[in-house]
């Protein structure tokens, strides 16, 4: 059952991700990206990462992509239709490099590589994924966690300052 579900979600993920890159209308691209994130959340659920699956939807689909949509609507963009030799060259190069990258990773995956040591027992199976993550996050990773809060604060201040634009001495918007 689980492998079939995984294949289904994976197919949806790849298809929607391709549509993000291929579609001409940025709003449609953004919506396909939301679908891609939702199918990724489904894959996380299959991998017993329930907490991450839900956080993926809350953070990516619920917050980040809404922000994207908001900006796209605010900027009132036209369709991205481009022609000319330069575009064709860029497209060809882009897809070629992509194929090369895929080939490299395929070679890496199929040739010899091995996993490091696997932990003997599952950490805290009974109490659920969220509780286990919380315990690790607030003990071993407490310092990075606090740093992240500062990072978010910096980003918040930065976003407000940048988006507000420069103000003249009389307070006129730039």
């Amino acid at each position, binding site marked *: 059952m*689980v*492998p079939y579900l*995984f294949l289904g979600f*994976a197919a949806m*993920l*790849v298809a929607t*991700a*391709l549509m*993000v*890159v291929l579609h001409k209308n*940025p709003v449609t*691209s*953004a919506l396909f990206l939301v679908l*891609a*994130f939702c199918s*990724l959340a489904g*894959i*996380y659920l*299959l*991998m*017993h*990462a329930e907490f*991450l699956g839900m*956080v993926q939807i809350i*953070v*990516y689909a619920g*917050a*980040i992509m809404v*922000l*994207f949509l908001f*900006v796209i609507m*605010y*900027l009132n*963009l036209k369709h*991205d239709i481009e022609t000319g030799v330069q575009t064709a060259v*860029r*497209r060809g190069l*882009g*897809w070629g*490099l*992509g194929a090369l*990258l*895929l080939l490299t*990773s395929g070679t890496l*995956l199929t040739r010899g590589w091995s*996993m490091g040591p*696997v*932990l003997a*027992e599952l*950490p805290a199976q009974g109490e659920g994924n969220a509780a286990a*993550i919380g315990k*690790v996050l607030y003990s071993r990773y407490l310092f990075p966690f606090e740093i*992240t809060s500062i*990072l*978010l604060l*910096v*980003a918040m201040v*930065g*976003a407000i300052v*940048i988006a507000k634009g420069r103000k003249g001495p009389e307070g006129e918007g730039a």
Partner: protein
Amino acid sequence: MIPLTWSLALSAVLFTIGVVGVLVRRNALVIFMSIELMLNAANLAFVAFAQQMNSLDGQIFVFFVMTVAAAEVAVGLAIIVNVFRLRETIFVDEINLLKG
């Protein structure tokens, strides 16, 4: 249990799609979305390894990556909005002020 190779292959495909998106498109917003795709490909690999190694450290990393992605999007979109105000375009091949 999903085989590790499957998840890693999916992650590689997703990452490649993101890279192609950055290389092929010229709309700054779509490029940004492709970067998000790449971040998510890395997240998928982290979760796959976490599952394989019976460890939660990979999932914690994904948690941090998501936080960083949220911060990055907030600042990045603010920059894009500002660029649009100045130049009336967000096509990266038309934003060439530094080229002189």
